[in-house]
């Protein structure tokens, strides 16, 4: 059935016969659809499969569902690789086996007897082939994950990424909500994407409750989301500079990232935007003095970033490492369903703010760069920094009058809603289903990293292992957002 971002619908309307479900899913994905979410919901002793497909150009969302007949179902991954992790997840969470899946193994190691990192790894054999294993504890101050490279000398034939170490059972608890902890779960799905996930969570509930969020609250949300993007993109450009030993930009951006975080803290008290969002609106308003202060700080920080990042494009030793490193073609990006800056850097013109507009976003222009390499992923971030700074400045100049929150009442029973936002890593999808009592029956979170980790693996294929840190940083994906 057809729906759109942020509108609630009757879940039974999406129900179809299992055979028709797989035929329809295949034909819609074949017609240019992109998987937003695909998951299993317990229904009595059985499971219901639910798939949400996005049509980016038309800004349309389609939802299909069927009761899984028997202990297995037809895998669509062989034709549509973008489904590979979704089907593995269904296998792990619901025990339904996708028949014909070429890559069936655990993704979070959260079933009885599973040992994290112990799985059937893909291996390459040959007298001079060797294997390099890294993690779960990495050299830097970053999240845990296990990476296994199949190499011939410096050359990487294959990289397999095995995560799950950050699995802390958030999705399961969200599904039992809403309760006093739900918003905190949303805020910490990926702690550096608090605004992105909290917005998606609030939107899903608002759609189900039929609440109209006041315009001032929408714009304040927009300011938080764009400050989050500014902080993270600035930090990433600094870290990319650090990974090619270009220390001026690395140092300047490290400090400048903090300036954006401090602006966020000025609004809501917390550098990561905690406590700002609530279903129905936001918790903190801006007065004249605060707007003035933010405007000054934004201008100052943006000039600093312009100066620091400008050095990157003018330095030969940086271009030498950035260009043609970790190339992901547009075909690969589309085939894997990549999202966010990683997709836009491979020429895919997808941005939720443009394709599925929400809140204060109107006539948004997407920043795209085509070469698919580290340079392109860095450059897209710089384009987006400029755009975000412009948006925030514009909003601070023309903040709509009115209240900052509306009352968010009870949720419509037996309904569902898809909420999409554009976090700094890319499209975030939350899919909420209510039961007959108006409580949540299931809550599905798809962090952009869930789509993108395989993109990083492909970026390394045929490259050099010494380029791994640089490629990894150019994606800068979330472990906890994927592991949930």
């Amino acid at each position, binding site marked *: 059935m057809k729906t759109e971002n942020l509108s609630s619908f009757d879940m039974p309307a999406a129900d179809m016969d299992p055979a028709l479900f797989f035929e329809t899913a295949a034909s819609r994905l074949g017609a240019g659809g992109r998987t937003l979410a695909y998951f299993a919901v317990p229904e009595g002793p059985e499971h219901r499969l639910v798939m949400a497909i996005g049509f980016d150009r038309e800004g349309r969302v389609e939802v299909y569902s069927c009761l899984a007949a028997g202990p297995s179902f037809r895998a669509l991954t062989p034709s549509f690789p973008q489904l590979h992790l979704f089907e593995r997840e269904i296998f792990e969470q619901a025990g339904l086996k996708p028949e014909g899946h070429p890559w069936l193994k655990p993704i979070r190691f959260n079933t009885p007897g599973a040992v994290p990192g112990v799985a059937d790894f893909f291996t390459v054999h040959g007298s001079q082939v060797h294997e390099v294993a890294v993690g*779960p504890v990495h050299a830097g101050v970053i999240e845990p994950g296990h990476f296994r490279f199949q190499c011939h000398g410096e050359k990487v034939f294959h990289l397999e990424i095995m995560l799950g*170490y950050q*699995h*802390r059972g958030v999705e399961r608890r969200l599904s039992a909500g809403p309760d006093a902890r739900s918003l905190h779960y949303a805020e910490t799905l990926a702690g550096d994407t608090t605004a992105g996930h909290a917005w998606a969570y609030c939107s899903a509930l608002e759609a189900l409750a039929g609440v109209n969020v006041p315009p001032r609250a929408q714009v304040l949300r927009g300011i938080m989301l764009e400050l989050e993007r500014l902080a993270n993109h600035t930090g990433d450009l600094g870290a990319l500079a650090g990974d090619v030993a270009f220390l001026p930009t690395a140092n300047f951006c490290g400090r400048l*990232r903090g300036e954006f975080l401090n602006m966020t803290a000025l609004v809501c008290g917390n550098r990561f935007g905690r406590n700002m969002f609530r279903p129905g609106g936001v918790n903190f308003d801006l007065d004249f003095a605060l707007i003035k202060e933010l405007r000054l700080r934004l201008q100052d920080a943006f000039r600093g970033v312009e100066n620091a990042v*400008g050095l990157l494009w003018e330095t030969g030793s940086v271009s030498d490492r950035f260009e043609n490193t970790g190339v992901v073609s547009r075909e690969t990006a589309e085939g894997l369903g990549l999202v966010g800056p990683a997709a836009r850097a491979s020429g895919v013109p997808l941005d939720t703010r443009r394709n599925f507009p929400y809140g204060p976003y109107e006539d948004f222009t997407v920043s795209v760069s085509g070469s698919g390499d580290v340079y392109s992923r860095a450059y897209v971030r710089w384009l987006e920094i400029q755009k975000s700074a412009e948006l925030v400045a514009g909003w601070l100049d023309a903040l709509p009058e009115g209240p900052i929150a509306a009352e968010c009442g009870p949720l419509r029973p037996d309904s569902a809603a898809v909420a999409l936002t554009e976090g700094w890593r890319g499209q975030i999808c939350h899919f909420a289903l209510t039961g007959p009592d108006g409580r949540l029956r299931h809550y599905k979170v798809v962090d952009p990293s869930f789509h993108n980790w395989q993109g990083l693996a492909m970026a390394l294929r045929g490259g050099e292992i010494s380029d791994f840190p640089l490629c990894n940083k150019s994606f800068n994906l979330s472990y906890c957002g994927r592991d949930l």
Partner: protein
Amino acid sequence: MIKALLARLKQGYRTMDFPAADLRLPPRGLGRPELSGRLEKAAAACPYSAITAGADPVLDLGKCVFCGACAAADPAGVSFTRDHRLCASRREDLAVKGAVLKRADALGADLRGIFGRSFRLRQVSAGGCNACEADCNVLGTPAWDMGRFGIQFVASPRHADGILVTGPVTRNMELALRKTYDAVSSPKVVIACGACAIGGGPYAGHEECVSIPKDIPVDLYIPGCPPHPMTILDGLLRLLGRID
């Protein structure tokens, strides 16, 4: 090259004084709480049972995620100050009573002699949301420059004097945490950074999380969700006896 030098001039000297008398959290920030009254409403509003109501109420900073729900429910009972100095040496010292919080003590003279001027930490991220990690990383930027105090995060536990743990310690990270701890030579220091590492944070009570095992003794608790970099640095410097 000349452009890099000009940029350096433009970017300026940015390292802040630390500790400085006027360092406080931003105006809307939530720092050390002060309590008065019986706090029944505040206790009922807390999703993490961090508050014990009664004639002598207690707020456990080890369970608190600083969401402010208690202060919203009982504005007269709980008020969060802008004081960032929250770290403690013992788990029980995180219990705030009235306006009192016992701050972290320095390590003993023998350990201070070893670590006081050169302190290397291996960070272990064990199931959190990456916000604590982000605010630990920030301490390495020129603004905070933790290196000036002789403190540094290092890549190998073999090079480290201790570990700094973030996250509620998921089942899937339990073994890796233990192996990393075992790989650090004695004497060694353990720091629990953030609400998750201390008491599970938002994930308290989840069966997927096991918390830091009892036989890994913690020397410093840094509350917050995530702790502000000021709070982390203040705690580290108190531990080393650089702040009294």
